[in-house]
């Protein structure tokens, strides 16, 4: 009978509701299915985090919103750290939320500010820094925190270099990384290559790839996401600036440099790697997972990706049973290695909050990035320690000797020469410029344009984006 059915539907909607609420409050014993150590750890962490999440906000507590872009294990770690803070700071309750990717998080914060309801603390990726400054919704952290609680000199030079804008820290550096080379030593052995000598230059990469692919040791040679970040890093590694006015550091950038020799060298090599079937990517822009999958499944012998994946890759290698090696980002032999830009993100404080919330947010930000937490964060992820004091502690522990994978990542940063190029560009429209660069690479790989054509078109589009943006903020 139809009427019975409708009744049934309404009942089932409510039954589902009941089920949902019952399950979310239900018991969460660790499963016995987690046969891998890593997974068991994660399951245990889930339990703790859930308990924390279920806690009601204490009455009268000052609530601080903190938005970030992480998922998976890192999300759990952040939630644990925040739970620790809440536990030790009665009267304050930090509510932590993940908002999707870096781009999503920035957009969500700006949309929330537009609604007059911005979160207090937001993680913003490095290339969003100028945009964040221009948006006017944040307050420079160094204006708010002074004195003994803030030690600007404790940041390692490369980090300070990037995040000091107009002579001061506008945000607190948090997760910093740069690209390194990961490789599968077993495939190297199978191909007859020395597993302790990964390729260092573009040229060595080409010949190693030939050996790997022709020997049949792996289907492809290498993968990395089709992401503007790598292009930016290679530019810096060759000492080339990305924008005028001292890479946007001396004054607001009004032009980008996308069609110079450095850019052409990078794209020509990239294209050659792709055409010969050495380089493989998922086909999607900024798809970190895709590159990971190709490498982890053994279809490629190498992967270039962030140092922050050290822990993830070690787990993957253990799960899939291969030996992992790490090395520096390859560079063209024609130029000297200049080093890398600090990638990653920092945390920003928004304005227009009552004084008690401001104080609490500030206190949380300082706690969250203190030496102890910097060490915890580094060990659990692979993001490098941004504080000298954290590095000192790690050295006393002999951490880097015991964990060589972390060392390659960190040494590469320490060896970086301080130039305008490695300081990293500041461009207001950088998120859009990055997309334009990525589309140029796409065009070249797809054979729809030559390197020169694609780059000069990108140069034109990017300049227009930069100028339109500048018009809207001046």
């Amino acid at each position, binding site marked *: 009978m*139809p*009427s019975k*059915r*409708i009744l*049934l*539907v309404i009942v*089932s*909607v*409510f039954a*589902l*509701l009941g089920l*949902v*609420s019952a*399950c*979310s409050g239900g018991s*969460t014993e660790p*499963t016995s*299915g*987690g*046969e*891998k150590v890593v*997974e068991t750890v*994660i*399951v245990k962490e*889930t339990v703790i*985090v*859930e308990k924390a999440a279920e806690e009601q906000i204490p009455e009268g507590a000052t609530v601080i*919103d903190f938005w970030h*872009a*992480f*998922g*998976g294990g*890192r*999300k*759990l770690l952040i939630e644990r750290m925040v739970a620790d803070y809440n536990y030790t700071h009665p009267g304050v309750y930090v509510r932590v*939320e*993940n*908002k*999707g*990717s*870096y781009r*999503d998080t920035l957009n*969500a914060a700006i*949309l*929330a500010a*537009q*609604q*007059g*309801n911005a979160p207090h603390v937001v993680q913003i990726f490095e290339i969003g820094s100028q945009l964040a400054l221009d948006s006017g919704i944040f307050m420079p952290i160094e204006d708010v925190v002074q004195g003994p609680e803030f030690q600007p000199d404790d940041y390692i030079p490369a980090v300070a270099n990037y995040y000091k804008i107009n002579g001061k820290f506008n945000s607190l550096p948090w997760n910093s990384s740069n690209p390194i080379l990961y490789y599968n030593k077993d495939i190297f052995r199978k191909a007859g290559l020395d597993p302790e000598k990964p390729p260092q230059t573009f040229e060595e990469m080409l010949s190693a790839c030939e050996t790997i692919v022709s020997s049949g040791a792996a289907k492809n040679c290498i993968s990395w996401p089709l992401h503007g970040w790598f292009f930016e890093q290679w530019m810096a590694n060759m000492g080339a600036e990305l924008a005028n006015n001292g890479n946007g550091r001396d004054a607001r950038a009004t032009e980008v440099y996308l069609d110079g020799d450095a850019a052409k060298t990078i794209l020509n090599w990239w294209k050659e790697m792709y055409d010969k079937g050495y380089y493989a990517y998922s086909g999607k822009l900024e798809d*970190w*997972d895709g590159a*990971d*999958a190709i490498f982890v*499944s*053994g279809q490629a012998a190498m992967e270039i990706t962030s140092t922050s*994946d050290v822990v*993830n890759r070690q787990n*993957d290698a253990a*799960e*899939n049973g291969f030996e992992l090696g790490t090395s520096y980002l390859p560079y063209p032999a024609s130029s000297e290695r200049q080093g890398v830009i600090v990638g990653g993100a920092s945390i920003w404080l928004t304005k227009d909050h009552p004084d008690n919330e401001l104080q609490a947010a500030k206190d949380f930000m300082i706690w969250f990035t203190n030496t102890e937490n910097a060490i915890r964060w580094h060990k659990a992820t692979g993001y490098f320690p941004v504080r000298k004091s954290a590095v000192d502690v790690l050295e006393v522990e002999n951490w880097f000797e015991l964990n060589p994978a972390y060392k390659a990542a960190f040494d590469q940063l320490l060896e970086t020469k301080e130039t305008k190029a490695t300081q990293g560009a500041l461009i207001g429209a950088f998120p859009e410029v990055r997309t334009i660069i990525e589309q140029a690479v796409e065009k070249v790989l797809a054979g729809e344009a030559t390197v020169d054509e694609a780059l000069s078109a990108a140069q034109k589009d990017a300049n227009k984006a930069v100028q339109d943006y500048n018009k809207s903020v001046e």
Partner: protein
Amino acid sequence: MTRKKRNDLFAHIGLIIICFIVLVPVLFALSKSTQTRAQVFHYPPILGPGTAMIQNYRTAWNEFNLSLYMQNSLIIAGIVMVFKTIFSMLAGLGLVYFDFPLKNGIFYFILFTLMMPTEIMIIALFNLVSDLGWGNNYAALTIPFLASATGVFLFRQHFASIPGELADAARVDGAGPVRFLWSVLVPMSRNTIGAMALIQFIYMWNMYIWPLVIIRENVRQVVQVGLRQMTNVQDTTNWGVVMAGAILAMLPPLIIFVLLHEQFTKGFALGQEK
């Protein structure tokens, strides 16, 4: 074998193949939702069940907040399903059983909104709802959707096809329009109500772009955006967990669909109902 039998056999084979093709993507998702990361990344792909089923579903449910998101989606879909049906029915009653000036004008005024899907005015709607201060509220996800031209149209057409003598009889009995609606029209409109309920539930459950831009905090976020978050983080995605999430997210509309598809077919599309 007769010709009819042979043709039937071909039809059976063809239908089985097509049903299978329709089923494959979900079977695939089901299989992957039980696999560990290593099993998912295995090359060539493993198609059977894996060893991490309970763990994946638990992770999707708890760690990625799907329990919360599904609850939110159920609440907003439930509210809209009930109130939109009531409001549309009332409007249909007003348009069919009364005479008043501008009646046709009003009907076309309502019908014209068929051409205004949310996506078209999303920029201005965002500003409006933000100004109302609903940015973090179920109100943002429900109130703008409580009325629809489709609903009014369906009920108006349906009421118009019900014999007028019934209303006469009701009036002679001294029943007012509300009682007439409740005791005569509602029982005679089960299929239309069922069709409306199904369409509205699925529409609300599938909402994507609007909650994506308007909802500020995850505590009010809906299930589709939750799926997006699972695949779109600055970190490695565990595809087994994502597939578990996809399976969970498709269950409630599937259940409602299975229960209501007959009303849907009869009430929405087709004349000549027996």
